[in-house]
């Protein structure tokens, strides 16, 4: 029997979320709008045994992805051994040549990973995509849980559950682990970033300074935080919530005004840790996603615990044939796009659209992946 106390407090939780400003910003038609997260008190229950299975699978996946990043930016054994075709690496916009032979502290590239999972109608779990650049999202369930506890202590007294309240501690431990000496800071592009609530919340919860680009300076190959009275204090780790492109105008996009000139030169010398490491985009590319199970076998010699959604690469002739034969039942994704863009369903195309798309597919097979459409399992009581 489920305790319904929390359900009765849904409105209270939503009011509290609004009061705390738990928002996520969306750009639509060139205007920035912040929206509250609607909170649904009916949880998706994951039983302990299943949670443990997911945890094992996710750990395995992230370890393999991290080894892949290290390999790609150094020896490239996985390419030389023919497991991943060269084209999928070097023609991808996620690969940054500037990261070649640059080793992050303790060889860690992906400190914080956002791996998207779905559960299909038959209750099996699939990984939909990996996000290893600047994933957002940890703060929202953290504060929601906190507010649920406050609104309905009864629920938490009566139901045994695994808590997520240790996330801040884990994050702090990860940041300390790679810190090369000095402060740990969380770098935000500022108030108008979609996930600004998250940046400030994580800073508060971990005790790290929340800073913007103008508060950090590079001097003599080291990174410093400029204090209120103008002193310079060494920074050893930066959990940066700005993308690679905007991180350093001297090494990446010269137009960036939110980055720190030369921070990448400090990183290159090993004098600061950046979480996540620059260059991670090559591991969460949609084309590379297909190869993650192969990566797990290649680097770890283990069978993947979690499965990918069934995916086909038209780059391979055999897969191309399958895709053409089953076009109407598949979803096609442009590997260069993200966030739901460049996704089309075979079944919803007109005859003409279909012909055009197939012509494009044949011309640029590397650009697309095809997946079986997964019907989500919807939790019911």
């Amino acid at each position, binding site marked *: 029997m489920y305790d319904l106390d929390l359900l009765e407090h849904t409105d209270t939780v939503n009011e509290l979320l609004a009061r705390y400003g738990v928002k996520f910003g969306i750009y639509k038609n060139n205007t920035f709008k912040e929206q509250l997260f609607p909170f649904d008190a009916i949880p998706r229950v994951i039983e302990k045994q299943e949670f443990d299975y997911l945890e094992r699978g996710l750990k395995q996946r992230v370890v393999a992805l991290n080894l892949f990043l290290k390999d790609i930016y150094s020896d490239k054994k996985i390419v030389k051994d023919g497991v991943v075709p060269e084209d999928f690496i070097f023609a991808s916009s996620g690969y940054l*040549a500037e990261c070649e032979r640059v080793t992050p502290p303790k060889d860690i590239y992906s400190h914080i990973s956002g791996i998207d999972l779905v559960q299909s109608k038959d209750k099996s779990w699939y990984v939909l995509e990996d996000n290893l650049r600047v994933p957002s999202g940890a703060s929202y369930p953290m504060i929601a849980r906190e507010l649920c506890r406050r609104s309905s202590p009864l629920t938490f007294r009566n139901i045994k559950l695994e808590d997520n309240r240790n996330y801040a501690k884990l994050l702090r431990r990860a940041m300390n682990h790679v810190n090369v000496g000095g402060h740990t800071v969380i770098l935000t592009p500022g108030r108008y970033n979609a996930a600004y609530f998250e940046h400030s919340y994580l800073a508060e919860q971990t005790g790290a300074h929340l800073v913007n680009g103008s508060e950090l300076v590079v001097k003599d*190959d080291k990174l410093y935080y400029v204090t209120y009275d103008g002193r310079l204090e060494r920074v050893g780790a930066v959990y940066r919530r700005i993308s690679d492109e905007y991180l350093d105008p001297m090494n990446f996009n010269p137009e960036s005004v939110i980055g720190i000139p*030369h921070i990448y030169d400090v990183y290159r010398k090993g004098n600061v840790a950046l979480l996540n490491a620059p260059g991670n985009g090559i591991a969460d590319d949609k084309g590379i996603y297909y190869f993650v199970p192969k990566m797990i076998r290649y680097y770890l010699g283990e069978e993947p615990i979690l499965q990918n959604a069934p995916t086909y690469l038209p780059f391979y002739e055999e897969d191309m044939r399958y895709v053409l034969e089953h076009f109407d039942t598949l979803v096609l994704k442009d590997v260069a796009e993200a966030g739901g863009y460049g996704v089309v369903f075979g079944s919803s195309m007109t005859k003409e659209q279909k012909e055009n798309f197939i012509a494009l597919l044949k011309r640029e097979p590397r650009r697309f992946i095809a997946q079986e459409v997964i019907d989500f399992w919807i939790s019911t009581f």
Partner: protein
Amino acid sequence: MRRLRFDYSMEIAYTEPVEECHYTIKCIPPHTARQCMEKAQIVIRSCRGEHTMTEEIFPVEEADGPCKGTDSFGNRFVYGKVSSVHDRFLFRATGLVTVGSADSETMDREGILPVYRHPYGLNLPGEGLKAYFASLRLSEEMSDYEKSVELMHRLYRDFSYGKDVTDVTTTAEEAWQLGKGVCQDYAHILIALCHMAGIPARYVAGMLVGEGYSHAWVEVLCQGRWYALDPTNDMLVTDAHIKLGVGRHAADCMINRGVICGGGSQRQTVNVIVTPV
């Protein structure tokens, strides 16, 4: 083989004062199988009116040291920041280099090699270059080296030299459509053509005896060795060429890069003197 003295100086004059400037200078001849740098130094100066505000001297014989580094393409650089208000920024790199006359050199930094096989940034071809390449009908009998040299000859014939038509952001395709350009454009187009022929190719920034300005050319990888071709002059690189940097395209080995605060509009003057010793 020749011993060359080089003197590369650049000045940027601003119409408004600059409060802060960050710079990265990639102007240090690398040691390679073809060339050997004996000594070099870089002097960076900022001025306001007639007054020198800051001066920084980097001896660069040693690769390691504060505010020095090597990028992923193997280019050495110095970097820093000027915090005094200034209206002119100058740098001068001087040194002595012995350049050999071999036509090629062995592979270096093998790890990064694949990036030179794939079109990227300014060397991405468009429809115009693709059509041009197809019209050349290179014989499959030729070796990669012969193909590269043939592509250089054809490009020299079909493209003309012209200043002030293109700038540092012009792509190979844009330059090709304009029909005119400078050494950077010749290099980007030749790289694009080599890629289409399946030959790895990279951009080289450098200096040339008697040129007066910085120069650029191309290296192609054939049978495990990098051969250097100068498409602007339709010649193989000689012992009059000093190499400064390499990359996929010009932006990877830009000799100076800067971010400034203030400054209004700017005028950049470059003067390069390379003389045999």
